[in-house]
């Protein structure tokens, strides 16, 4: 079966060891997590974890159900099939000489990226966007010599008025319909 990229969002208790429990379940199934991003959610004491993994729909669904069973996971959603706003932030340190600096600035400008640090022979660029956009810019910057990259991994939100909780209800309904 073909593997596809899945985006999972988990709302979890903000307690020691919770992330360990979540990640451990992926390890058991032999998944390599592409990216994982954790931060506070809109609800106090709850964190939001965004995970992207490659896997067949059936195996990812199995992991989602197992994650849902964790006591500290309040909710977990596979929002892959939703219309998403997905963003990642990257900091890229690139070699820059007086000869190449203006060209790099031009590339940064095209990608609406910011220069956040300037040193004698390097520039640090901050870029936000989806993974493709960041990869495209990285490709162009490789020619100058990339010294360091830090990427946050994807965070994602379902488009429109409804939050992720409602979007999941909708998805669950359509899943139930399919089963029936």
């Amino acid at each position, binding site marked *: 079966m073909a593997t596809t990229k899945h985006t999972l969002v988990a709302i*979890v*208790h903000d307690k020691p*060891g919770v992330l*360990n*429990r979540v990640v*451990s379940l992926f390890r*058991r199934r032999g998944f390599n997590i592409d990216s994982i991003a954790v931060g506070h959610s809109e609800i106090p004491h709850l964190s939001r974890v965004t995970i992207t993994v490659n896997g067949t729909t*059936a195996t990812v*669904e*199995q992991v989602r*159900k*197992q994650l*849902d*069973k*964790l*006591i*500290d*996971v*309040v*909710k977990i959603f596979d929002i892959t099939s939703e219309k998403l706003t997905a963003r990642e932030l990257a900091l890229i340190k690139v070699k820059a000489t007086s000869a190449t600096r203006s060209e790099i600035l031009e590339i940064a400008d095209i990608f609406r990226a910011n220069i956040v640090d300037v040193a004698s022979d390097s520039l640090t660029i901050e870029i936000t966007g989806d993974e493709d956009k960041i990869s495209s810019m990285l490709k162009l910057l490789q020619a100058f010599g990339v010294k360091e990259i830090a990427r946050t991994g994807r965070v994602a939100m379902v488009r429109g008025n409804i939050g992720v909780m409602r979007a999941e209800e909708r998805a669950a309904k359509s899943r*139930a319909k399919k*089963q*029936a």
Partner: protein
Amino acid sequence: MKKTGAQILCESLIAEGVDVMFGFPGGVLLPFYDTLPQYPQIRHILVRHEQGAAHAADGYARATGKVGVCMATSGPGATNLVTGIANAYLDSVPMVALTGQVVRAQIGKDAFQEIDISGITLPITKHSYVAMDAGALAGIVKEAFYIARSGRPGPVLIDLPKDVMTDQAEYVYPDKVELPGYKVPTHGHPTQLKSAAKLINEAKQPLIIAGRGVLISGASPQLKDFAEKAQIPVITTLLGISCFPEDHVLSYGMAGMHGTGYANKALENCDLLIAVGMRFDDRVTGKVNAFAPHAKIIHIDMDPAEIGKNVAVHVPIVGDVGAVLYAMEKIIETNRHIDWIRQLDEWRKQHPILDIHDSAALLPQHIIHELYEATRGDAIVVTGVGQHQMWAAQHYIFHEPNTFISSGGLGTMGFGLPAAMGAKVGCPDKMVWLIDGDGSFQMTIQELATLVQDNIAVKIAIMNNGFLGMVRQWQDLFYAKNYVATPISCPDFVKVAEAYCIAGIKVTRREEIRPAIEQAMNHDGPFLLNFMVEPEENVYPMVPPGAANIEFIERPKKEVSAWQRRSTR
């Protein structure tokens, strides 16, 4: 009023109805053990190895349906619990495991006997806690018991730093738990129930396969009503044994690797399979693509993650098995399925389970059959893991729920003796028989001392064949009889028993079986029977590993004559 952490723990355990726990002390647990005598309501049974404590709590829980409690000290004590916790996890047994921990300031510093037990047990517990605050302890215990026993049960671990036991805090036992991330399904979805009822009404050759979920839910009466109304034959998984009376006209025994030929034929030919509280373990499905090949499948289970995990199903129903069966029984039509049942009875005649000729040899099948007759099926039977376990499953006839206690998912050799101990402590008025193998028994033999010290009257029947029999059987059938590392010597078990002050006798001849069993039953206290059985007897039928259930092999006729020749020499 303020109490110490140890007092809070004891009070909380009592509030949860705990009257017995199996444990082994150690340095960091001293404050707890120092406090324990203040609470005579809690009977503490000192085991000889912490693995025994976990299995005893497991056996206690399976026999009574209550949460089993075990305790071990930090470091090696805690790691010795691990096998028992894993065993309980795989068989969905409600258990609370309490472990001592070094003082809080020393956590993470590789202190003496410090180990990260909550980390080690992460994948084999339903949930775990490190109790870092005496004030939070009561709430943690409350949650732990609730999580252990509700939904799909499982083990919950609480790690207890030594100084939390001595810290003082206000004791208020919470009256409810708040766990927003924890959902317990109850009733099945009405639409799904309707879809299932339609399939059931239309089926010509329906079959029920019942698992341990029925026992956990206490749903045996509902299962019986449901099966009887539509006259649907019932087979069980290994752990489902005793959830449906095996002397019932609709009972066709256990399915799977060592299931009856007729149960596996029924699986092969049914057009509708109603899977109730079971999880399609590979030992029951055989080759999964060939499992119930002509059937639509209805899967009723408490755990949504079990739906579609191993086998694709047509109608999943997530909910409490008892509630779902009750609701379903109301909406299905009465039916008879005369031809289908006649067919099953025909198969039963063609593939009798007791397929051995009368013989003077001492055969485990005969022993277990005699044990059934002598106890009239009224005993709780606990087993170790191996051939004897399968023979017990095949040849004892179980009438009442929770009377067969065995390690299924993990297949833990050494489970038997401590689990039997736990079962007897939980059900002192029932006769508890341990059917064990000479290999399994030697793994936890030290608990004989516990039987004596705490006067736990377990009756022990060892099927002693001088081999690690099940492994030898695989070597026999699939590795050209290359018996490597399976011949196993053992001490004279009767003498060992005697050394522990337990009475016992050795049995070598078939005609001695019944008198020996009677003697054990009439004896006041534990008793050991060492049955010197036919060494190379195999368990049949058997589905070869990786084969489809229908490819089960039966006892080869020439093998029958081989041991018959030996036994008549």
